[in-house]
């Protein structure tokens, strides 16, 4: 067990390798109940959240979810989050380590009619992720839920809010279930999928799969000192939607071009680039590794690095400090791997003409 944002979380249940491969080839079940969950309600909740977040909530109708950033006045990322539009108000899922900070920030800016309610401890959250997740989740009607859509349903007879979202690059579902029932749902889902190869998956597999999909991890790949464009998340910034916190700064960054960029690196087997490792090119220091791991699925180590803008492009080679020496790395296109969520996002794009979560700058 490891401490993760104040929660005791399993790094692995059996083996990170087996759990990682299960998510890529069949499906894996993650307990992500540590993530913060808020309900935002009130007459002016659309205007309130529009002023706080970078993406355009006017694009969302009831039953849809959206990836979003909450930025400070400098355009730095306070947190990345997913916003769900319900029939009355919104539901917001934030990073565990930022829950209290986000809650304080949102409440400090909320007008009188807005209520920001922390529901983290009333609801459990499970993520069932993998190419076979639709077949193997014991639930009817999943084919009716589009990518980044959500609805109500019964999972193994237990009431759940089911959203077709995730953090692995695979097709999959996130299930909001009342805390007193979530343990039963966990057991039933694993029992139902066991013979097909479904495994419970821990933080190790979660980190490896999200990194292959180049999904940013707040605290590693970005934080309040990294702006949305530097993090490669400019597609979530809708400068034309009206005013929001950070808009002015972000407009300037967009006009001048970001000073740093996030790039993908592929390393030689055994050369695992860890968070904070120095990156150089042509003998000149240009940045640091923000996330790195060995990908059991791809068979080589991968890393994200924050480097000076225009210092590297796809096809270039760079040097990364590994165990006190310089290891060669190839700059590769992001994401490192496109899982089964790809076909879904393409379907969705054609329907709504909107970019998907997996689009990379």
């Amino acid at each position, binding site marked *: 067990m490891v401490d993760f944002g104040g929660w005791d979380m399993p790094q692995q249940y059996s083996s990170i390798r087996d759990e990682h491969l299960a998510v890529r080839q069949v499906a894996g079940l993650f307990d992500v109940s540590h993530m913060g969950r808020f309900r935002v309600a009130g007459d002016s909740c659309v205007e309130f959240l529009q002023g706080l977040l970078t993406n355009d909530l006017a694009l969302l109708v009831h039953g849809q979810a959206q990836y979003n950033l909450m930025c400070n006045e400098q355009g730095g990322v306070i947190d990345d989050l997913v916003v769900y539009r319900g029939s009355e108000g919104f539901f917001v899922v934030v990073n565990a380590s930022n829950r209290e900070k986000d809650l304080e920030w949102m409440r400090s800016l909320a007008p009188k009619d807005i209520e920001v309610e922390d529901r983290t401890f009333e609801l459990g959250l499970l993520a069932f992720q993998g190419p076979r997740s639709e077949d193997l989740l014991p639930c009817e009607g999943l084919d009716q839920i589009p990518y980044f859509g959500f609805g109500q349903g019964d999972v193994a007879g237990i009431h759940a809010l089911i959203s077709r979202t995730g953090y692995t690059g695979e097709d999959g579902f996130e299930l909001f279930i009342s805390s007193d029932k979530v343990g039963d749902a966990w057991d039933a889902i694993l029992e139902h999928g066991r013979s097909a190869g479904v495994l419970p998956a821990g933080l190790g597999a979660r980190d490896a799969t999200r990194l292959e999909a180049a999904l940013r991890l707040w605290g590693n790949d970005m934080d309040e000192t990294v702006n949305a464009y530097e993090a490669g998340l400019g597609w979530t910034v809708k400068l034309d939607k009206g005013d929001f916190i950070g808009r002015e700064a972000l407009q300037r960054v967009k006009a001048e071009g970001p000073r740093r960029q996030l790039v993908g690196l592929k390393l030689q087997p055994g050369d*695992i680039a860890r968070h904070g490792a120095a990156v150089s090119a042509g003998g000149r220091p240009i940045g640091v590794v923000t996330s790195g791991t060995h990908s*059991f699925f791809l068979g080589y180590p991968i890393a994200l690095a924050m480097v000076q803008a225009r210092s590297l492009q796809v096809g270039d080679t760079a040097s990364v400090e590994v165990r006190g020496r310089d290891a060669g790395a190839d700059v590769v296109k992001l994401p490192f791997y496109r899982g089964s969520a790809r076909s879904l996002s393409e379907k969705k794009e054609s329907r709504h003409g909107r970019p998907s979560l997996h689009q990379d700058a």
Partner: protein
Amino acid sequence: MADRRYTKTHEWVTVDGKHATIGITDFAQSQLGDVVFLELPSAGRKLASRETFGVIESVKAASDLYAPVAGRIAEVNEKLASKPELINSDPYGEGWILKLELSGDLPSDLLDEAEYKKVTEASAS
């Protein structure tokens, strides 16, 4: 195995006459998680007791490997280059790391099974 001895840094050693086999303990592999790579020396190199002789990379971290005894490296487990996971599946058997020709006496601070167990219980809590 009665003649297997341990170090506080979680290596093990078995001795047969002038020959020693070394590896990392079951506790060490379980703490490291899946091993993905080992950086190992070549046969012929002389190691002092407590000398760092290599690095083991798991998904979680890179850790130094220390020689539990002094000697010249007679053999390196070549299988680990392609199958580092042997360290996880069979740390005391197929997952051995080096064979040494011993030089000098065994260090006096090697631990027996019961003593090592106490070390692991202390670091697990």
